[in-house]
């Protein structure tokens, strides 16, 4: 089973039971949009007991310091978790789960919510037992300990990491109801690490060095071929994410950062870098992560992630619950080529577009947060976002992509996403004419 987009194989109509389960899962507030949106109505006449009565948390003492030595989110946020799509893979050890984009704001993804993709489960490595070897076409093959790595000059950089298969289930049409599932194989983190070129220079590159083979220490011993120019340009060997140690599921104690390029190349649990003169054509760059076209040929080495955006709110897991009036549409935009220069939003299915407001840092190869604030009249909406990057690349429609590539590429689906917002505020993943 090599592809991830066979929508009509087991398709079945939605039943009422399924509707209610889904709405519950979507986070409680989703019970039919407006029904749950009644909190503001109380002030019309009856005083709000939450104001007029003294609440427990206002009277009794709470937990003291140290009751949560490593802080965790409020119990009222317990629904904000990564989720998987169990039917996608044969086994959880080689699988993927998804970032809950619809629950987040700003541009940084919290460490515990960064989507996971493993090919042999999570390697649990004591940093004292970890070694990084550089060998091959170098003057002197070297072994570094974690302590060695932390003595090189450090840098802090914010980059998105997107799986090349993000949105891969949508090639044949709208399939999954929620941006967590359609777009959640992306996260955005500030990494602390050292430039890969420092490590390579330490070993001394031979004149015929052209390619690198980074390898992970996990049970899949993940490998990818990386061209040397990229390594010397902006790759990092990172040991911190958002200020703290990498999480085990993100490659603790050290991972490769390959800015703007597909996530599979960001080898986790990095233990070895071989320097060579030719690419290796390993499993993850031949059998996988190659893009099959309609004529039966396939693109290889499609490293860069395309210009892309998605509206995260409202979306199927995050309906509008407040009724008509002042409404915020927000979402994320990114490009593997650099900065986002503009994001446009439409609420009428692409007849008319409006420039959205990008707020927060605008960094190269990082997620950008956009907002479109408008006065909703309560009518049905077909909402989309369209990103442009600093090189003039414009996010294409899904139809444009299909007309060039067919429907079996799996990877690099950056087509414009449409949500249909109904009069009750609920939203659905649709495609439009």
């Amino acid at each position, binding site marked *: *089973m*090599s*592809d991830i*987009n*066979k*929508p009509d*194989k087991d*398709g079945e*109509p939605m039943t009422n039971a399924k509707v209610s389960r889904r709405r519950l899962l979507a986070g409680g507030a989703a019970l039919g949009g407006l029904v749950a949106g009644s909190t503001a109505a109380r002030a019309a006449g009856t005083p709000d007991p939450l104001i007029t009565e003294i609440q427990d948390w206002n009277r009794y003492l709470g937990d003291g310091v140290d009751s949560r030595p490593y802080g965790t989110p409020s119990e009222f946020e317990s629904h904000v978790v990564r989720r998987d799509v169990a*039917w*996608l893979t*044969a*086994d959880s*050890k*080689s699988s993927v789960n998804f970032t809950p984009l619809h629950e987040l704001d700003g541009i940084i993804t919290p460490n515990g919510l960064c989507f996971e993709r493993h*090919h*042999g489960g999570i390697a649990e490595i004591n940093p004292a037992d970890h070694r990084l070897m*550089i*060998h091959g076409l170098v003057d*002197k093959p*070297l*072994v570094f300990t974690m302590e060695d790595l932390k003595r*090189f000059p450090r840098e802090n950089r914010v980059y998105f990491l997107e799986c090349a298969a993000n949105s891969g289930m949508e090639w044949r049409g709208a*399939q999954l109801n*929620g941006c967590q599932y359609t777009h959640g194989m992306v996260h955005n983190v500030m990494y602390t690490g050292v430039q890969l070129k420092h490590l390579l220079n*330490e070993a001394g590159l031979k004149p015929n060095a052209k390619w690198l083979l980074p390898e992970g220490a996990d*049970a*899949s011993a993940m*490998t990818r071929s990386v061209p040397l120019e990229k390594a010397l340009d902006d790759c990092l060997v990172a040991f911190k994410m958002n200020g703290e140690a990498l999480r085990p599921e993100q490659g603790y104690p050290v991972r490769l950062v390959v800015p703007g390029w597909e996530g599979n190349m960001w080898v986790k649990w990095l*233990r070895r870098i071989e320097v060579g003169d030719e690419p*290796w*054509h*390993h*499993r993850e760059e*031949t*059998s996988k992560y190659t893009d099959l076209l*309609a004529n039966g040929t*396939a*693109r290889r*080495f*499609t490293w860069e992630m*395309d210009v892309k955006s998605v509206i995260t709110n409202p979306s*199927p897991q995050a309906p509008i619950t407040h009724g008509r009036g002042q409404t915020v549409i927000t979402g994320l935009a990114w490009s593997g080529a650099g900065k986002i220069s503009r994001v446009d939003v439409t609420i009428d*299915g*692409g*007849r*008319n*577009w*409006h420039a959205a407001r990008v707020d927060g840092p605008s960094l190269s190869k990082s997620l950008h947060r956009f907002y479109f604030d408008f006065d909703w009249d309560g009518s049905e909406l077909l909402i989309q976002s*369209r990103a442009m990057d600093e090189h*003039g*690349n*414009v996010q294409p429609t899904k139809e*444009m992509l299909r007309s060039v590539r067919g429907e079996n590429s799996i990877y*690099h689906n950056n087509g414009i996403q449409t949500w*249909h917002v109904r009069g009750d505020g609920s939203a*659905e*993943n*649709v495609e439009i*004419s």
Partner: protein
Amino acid sequence: MSRFLKLAVFAGALAALPAATLGTAQAQDADAGEKVFRKCKACHAVGEGAGNKVGPHLNDLFGRTAGMIRDFKYSNAMKAAGEGGLVWDDESIATYLINPKDMVKGTKMAFAGLKKDEDRADVIAYLKTFSAGGGEEAPATQESKAEEPEAKTEMAAAAPAVMAKDVAVPEHGVFHLGREALNEEIAAWDIDIRPDGTGLPVGRGTVAQGEPIYADNCAVCHGDFGEGTGRWPVLAGGHDTLTEERPEKTIGSYWPYLSTVYDYVRRAMPFGNARSLSDDDVYALTAYLLYLNDVVTDEDFELSNENFTDIHLPNEENFFMDDRASEPHYAEKSEPCMKDCKAEPAKITMRARVLDVTPEGEDGEGAGAIE
């Protein structure tokens, strides 16, 4: 005798426990059982430090309620069986092993079963040596394990302090960090193979030799003929399907290079027991996969480091470098339309709910797969 048993006997002797119990009647059966267990090893681990793989670990299996290992994702059927009172003992394991799906309908265990009474008895005897109730070794081993961290702490404390000024600084590089990698260390990790044959170890194996290795280690997930069970990868077939609506991308139909097969099997397979096959085993398996894909047809065909690069896979020529930038929607770089971009109001042409495969906490089985 497994490494775990040796350790256990050693630890047991130290603790002055009656280690002799290990050497009695069950030992012979257990040795035979260790061989039978090879069929199970692709999915189950047992012994010191064993963790869950595709299947749960089998330490302390005897007396364990079915479906009870907390961090293992059982089928609903197995959890229900445990809740219904199924406890693993000689009798229940023997029944289960005849045909797992007969006894626990809906179990995830894809294994067809052990049909021979003797095989079942032997593997049960073998597994029993890893259960606390089956021998004296388990408690002793736990004790020896528990002592380890303390010993390490003592050693660290005993290490003499080195003054910073006395530390030797290497001369290489710019920052003088790291130390030279030894040839033995490079050899231990440098296992990658390239299409031109660079990296291939000296060795050989035939199709016929590969067949039983495949049956023992691979067939449980990939199917007897490489057809794949469940959502595990299909390895063979799929010829001429790449332009069809449902392409089947296999070694024979899609992979460009045979070196990828050798490299990947050697580094990552069997799933959950990587690096356990010898170089000759991997040659034999690679030869068998060529046979399953009709690239070779002779069962006596022998693949070796000498003839490896003579073999070419059918789809090698059909890959080309990334040319996305030449696609019209990128090449044009035109200013996108902002006003009155469509003559007609947009109409919905497809809805997610028609397919409805969004996860819902239950068995909403959808379409497609990733590996």
